[in-house]
């Protein structure tokens, strides 16, 4: 088996995104989304309580935080899949608070889901074609006469095939989406989002369920989006990915924005390590759990530290995160 993986080419990070000191709610030089006083509660639980937040245009922003921090709820609110108890926000200077999801998507703000929503009984190509905007064949009268929409249909198909090739799904284009694996559905959902030629792409855990080797090419695709002028906002637990591609990182915990900044600074922030990352990311769990000796440690980890840390230390951190 020969490898077709080429090492990722380092691309420059976008800097100079904020005005003043990087703190929660800091103003951006050119924000695409501005959120003010957004609150969403479920019974007695406040899932989102964001005073002020700006997402920088033309950059890749990561939204990180522990499970239950409100990241997906914020995504749902901003994309019209849920309604807030209070607050407002703008997209590209236009107020879109309370706007339904399909209108938000037409404006150029599309999203993907943590649990994919591919239409299983349509083929991969049909799923892709559904993503295109302003289709003449969607209008009742025009739909009856193929000469109105045939040409546009072919153009859409060409574009779909091109994007599928990029995501290495072209061989599957005639298969039902239901026959794809979890990771492939993830790729399809991202590819379909691009069919609407968005300005802002919001990805909810794009790497969850995607194989690490494929991760690299997917990262390249996300970096390409930025090069093509799009803004990307993504939720992710994979810190390698965040470090590698994000220009800006926003950390949420208990519904609030608790830190903002460039990836390196944010990941060194003790409050972020305590609340989310844990202090033990470079350990070999096989050594920590006593299954292996330190001399056999995974070469990419810190063998000495792995030998000294106790299982209970990690469990304590995890239970702290839940509180």
């Amino acid at each position, binding site marked *: 088996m020969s490898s077709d993986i080429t090492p990722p080419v380092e691309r420059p990070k976008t800097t100079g995104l904020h005005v003043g000191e990087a703190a929660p709610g800091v103003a951006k030089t050119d924000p695409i989304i501005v959120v003010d006083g957004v609150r969403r509660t479920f019974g007695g639980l406040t899932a989102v309580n964001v005073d002020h937040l700006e997402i920088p245009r033309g950059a890749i922003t990561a939204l990180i*935080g522990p*499970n239950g921090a409100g990241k997906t709820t914020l995504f749902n609110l901003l994309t019209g899949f849920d309604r807030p108890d209070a607050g407002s926000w703008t997209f590209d200077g236009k107020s879109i608070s309370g706007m339904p999801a399909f209108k938000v998507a037409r404006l150029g703000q599309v999203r993907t889901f943590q649990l994919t929503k591919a239409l299983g009984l349509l083929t991969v190509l049909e799923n892709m074609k559904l993503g295109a905007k302003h289709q003449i064949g969607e209008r009742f009268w025009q739909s009856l006469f193929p000469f109105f929409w045939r040409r546009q249909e072919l153009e859409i198909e060409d574009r779909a095939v091109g994007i599928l090739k990029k995501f290495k799904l072209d061989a599957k284009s005639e298969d039902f989406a239901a026959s794809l*694996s979890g*990771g492939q559905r993830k790729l399809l959902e991202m590819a379909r989002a691009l069919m609407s030629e968005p300005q802002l792409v919001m990805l909810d855990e794009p790497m969850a369920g*995607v194989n690490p080797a494929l991760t690299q090419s997917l990262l390249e695709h996300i970096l390409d989006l930025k090069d093509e002028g799009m803004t990307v906002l993504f939720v992710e637990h994979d810190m390698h990915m965040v470090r590698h591609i994000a220009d800006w990182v926003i950390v949420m915990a208990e519904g609030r924005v608790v830190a903002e900044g460039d990836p390196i600074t944010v990941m060194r922030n003790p409050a972020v390590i305590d609340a*989310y990352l844990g202090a033990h990311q470079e350990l070999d769990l096989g050594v920590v759990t006593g299954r292996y000796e330190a001399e056999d440690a995974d*070469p990419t980890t810190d063998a000495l530290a792995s030998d000294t840390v106790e299982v209970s230390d*990690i469990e304590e951190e995890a239970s702290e995160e839940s509180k």
Partner: protein
Amino acid sequence: MSPTATAELVVDINNVVAGYLPGVNILNGCSLQARRGELIGIIGPNGAGKSTLLKSIFGQVNVRSGTITLDGEDITSLRANQLVALGVGMVPQTNNVFASLTIEENLQMGLFQRPSAYAERLEFVTSIFGELGKRLKQRAGSLSGGERQMVAMSRALMMDPKVLLLDEPSAGLSPVRQDEAFIRVSEINKAGVTCIMVEQNARRCLQICDRGYVLDQGRDAYTGTGRELLNDPKVTELYLGTLGV
């Protein structure tokens, strides 16, 4: 060599061909052996057939050819309820708790074939998942993703399985919660349960497993101890990713 390397075979999968749609095979002659007390990790690219392999053991996919045995007995294409009675437990990746039921009711559901053993099994499960024992009356739907995963694992353990199948136990969890999930899998295995785990977090998976299988295009492409695979440059390049930390 791990102490389990010479133990007797518990699960023996021999040249299994399986798939969902007529004429389309996802597994193309896949073989895997798990010995008593082993922790087996299965990694590989998307669409390689990792989850399908677990489902074919658990009777959720039609096995077209090949055999699967449990303790020497043919279990190919038995139904899931029969397999649970024979000692096979499964922890699915998603939708793995009954959200409207309490933790206690979830655990009872795991034991509905043998309710009299509840007290004894609860004691075992809470020896590994101590915090669940203190929250038995809480609804599973109010738990975080990491906590749900713990409930799902506990429920599968209630039937005292010989073999536990785990489909991506770390999926969707924050970094520290992922580590906790792997630690719990290791503890379950140390308590004597043979575990077969599919994982996308390949490095963490190989760190704790005794042996690993790399699946590619429905076949077992590489096999070795977890340590051998971690140190194999080809496996690193193709399956573990080479992003800088």
